């Protein structure tokens, strides 16, 4: 079981002080949060990707590479990578490069984006959102698995005799999750490829999550990847905790009431009941988190949102300390009753082992136009 955090990188005013962090502060805070996540023993740090204020999460690959250079163990991921508006050729290059730089500590989650105008900004049509996600990923999937690709499609200029570089580390592409809240087509896509499926879970009632995960599991089995309960499932989660439950409620309420997405809407009482948001003591967060299995089955990855709604960095780091304290109990709880045939989330190591060992996947150039020599000849 992997336990980690994901961040959307919102720049939000702290409602208790009226202060809004600068982009620079928020960008640096994201790095500090990721490093802290590794320090308290978490397994995954994932960043979102947005291309508009109030977010600082554009260029996620620079952020992940920079964090990768300052951490040793934590898996770097995305939540999400915009497969709709980003050229799949660039995604193939960027994440293969981070794979090499971090020795395989990277995977990624495909998503479609949070705002309509992001499509026209990148020359796309939002009405084609699902079609873009499907065609672009089909190309990305090939670019990482075939050394030479001939391709033509509807949304991008054709490729002839094209080799994406660098080739995936050890010949094994990064593991891919597909994230969707309410689009069954994306659960179907994840199942077809035998990739992971991640449900945001937070901000939504459990019934949404349950329906989508159930569809993914059924179809994973249908496409021959194994029994439904061996499909690779990830969930989001959201908490605010203090040792004393009432302190958590008092401190978090102004952030809740003014939060982007759900602020100025339902009461915190209603929302904590209707969605996975848990406000309370570490023990309450632990118990609630372990109850997610009741409606999705045993799963592989749990990511929490901890740094949003204007919470100051100091508070976020305290939240991570508290999460670190309950982490051993959480791991123990997730292991309880877990059948032996339910797999862990794939990692670079497990994927290499499944592929029969590491292979150098370098594609050497055919001939150097200046010297006429082939790279292999020179090396030989």
């Amino acid at each position, binding site marked *: 079981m992997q336990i980690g955090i994901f961040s959307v990188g919102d720049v939000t005013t702290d409602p208790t002080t009226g202060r809004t962090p600068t982009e620079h502060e928020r960008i640096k805070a994201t790095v500090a949060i990721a490093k802290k996540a590794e320090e308290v023993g978490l397994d995954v740090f994932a960043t979102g990707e947005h291309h508009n204020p109030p977010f600082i999460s554009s260029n996620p690959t620079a952020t992940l590479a920079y964090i990768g250079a300052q951490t040793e163990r934590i898996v770097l991921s995305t939540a999400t990578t915009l497969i709709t508006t980003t050229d799949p050729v660039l995604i193939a290059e960027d994440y293969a490069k981070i794979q090499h730089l971090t020795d395989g500590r990277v995977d990624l989650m495909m998503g479609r984006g949070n705002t309509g105008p992001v499509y026209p900004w990148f020359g796309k049509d939002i009405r084609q959102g699902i079609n873009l996600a499907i*065609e672009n990923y089909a190309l990305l999937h090939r670019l990482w698995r075939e050394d030479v690709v001939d391709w033509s499609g509807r949304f991008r200029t054709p490729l002839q005799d094209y080799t994406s570089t660098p080739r995936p580390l050890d010949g094994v592409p990064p593991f891919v999750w597909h994230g969707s809240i*309410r689009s069954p*087509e994306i659960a179907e896509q994840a199942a077809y490829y035998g990739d992971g499926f991640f449900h945001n879970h937070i901000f939504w009632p459990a019934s949404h999550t349950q329906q*989508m995960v159930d569809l993914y599991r059924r179809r994973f089995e249908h496409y021959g990847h194994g029994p439904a309960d061996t499909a690779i499932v990830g969930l989001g989660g959201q908490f605010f905790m203090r040792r004393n439950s009432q302190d958590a409620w008092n401190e978090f309420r102004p952030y809740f009431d003014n939060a982007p997405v759900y602020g100025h*809407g339902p009461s915190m009482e209603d929302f904590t009941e209707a969605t996975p948001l848990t406000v309370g003591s570490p023990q309450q967060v632990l118990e609630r988190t372990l109850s997610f299995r009741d409606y999705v089955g045993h799963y592989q990855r749990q990511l929490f949102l901890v740094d949003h709604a204007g919470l100051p960095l100091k508070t976020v780091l305290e939240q991570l300390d508290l999460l670190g304290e309950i982490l051993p109990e959480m791991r123990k709880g997730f292991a309880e009753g877990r059948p032996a045939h339910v797999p862990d989330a794939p990692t670079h190591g497990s994927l290499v082992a499944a592929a029969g060992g590491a292979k150098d996947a370098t594609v050497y150039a055919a001939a150097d136009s200046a010297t006429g020599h082939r790279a292999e000849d020179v090396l030989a």
Partner: protein
Amino acid sequence: MTSVVVVSAGLSNPSSTRLLADRLAAATSQALEEVDVTVVELRDVAHELTDHLLTGFPGPRLAAAIDAVRSADGLVVVTPVFSASYSGLFKTFFDVLEPGTLDGTPVLVAATAGTARHSLVLDHALRPLFAYLRAVVVPTGVFAATEDFASPELEQRIARAAGELAALVGKVSPADAAGPARRSVDDELAAPTPFEELLRRASGSAG
């Protein structure tokens, strides 16, 4: 059993909108032999409607109201006239329905106002809304200004409109009325479009 849902957007209590809604409900019950009539009072779910706009999902009472409307064989919808149109509360309810919810559903439109000068609201505001939603609006709409509540002619229009609704209920299927039915999220969850078909659609060669 045939089910008719009455959606009433009156705000006060007692409300002339609800009064008209109840008379339409009674007339519809009379026109159909066996019918189960449910009244959805939008005032009761006003908070949940606002929350739905902000969060994207319905609270429990609103979810029940939406389910009732989705499975109804016919609808009676009644709004007060606010600023020359349907009220915001009335519109919000139809805004949060998933596309396809009312495809082919027979609808009787009705409105109340303080003066007869608003009577065209049925034809200028409600009919276009329900045409967009691909519902089938019955020919007679019922508009009641305050003074009409003392008029015997109102009862005649109520009876005629209810009769028209009764004649359509159970006879119009979405496929007849609106072409091939749109697939809802629930349809996809129950029977997903196979991925090979999604790939074909993505490439623009089908669907």
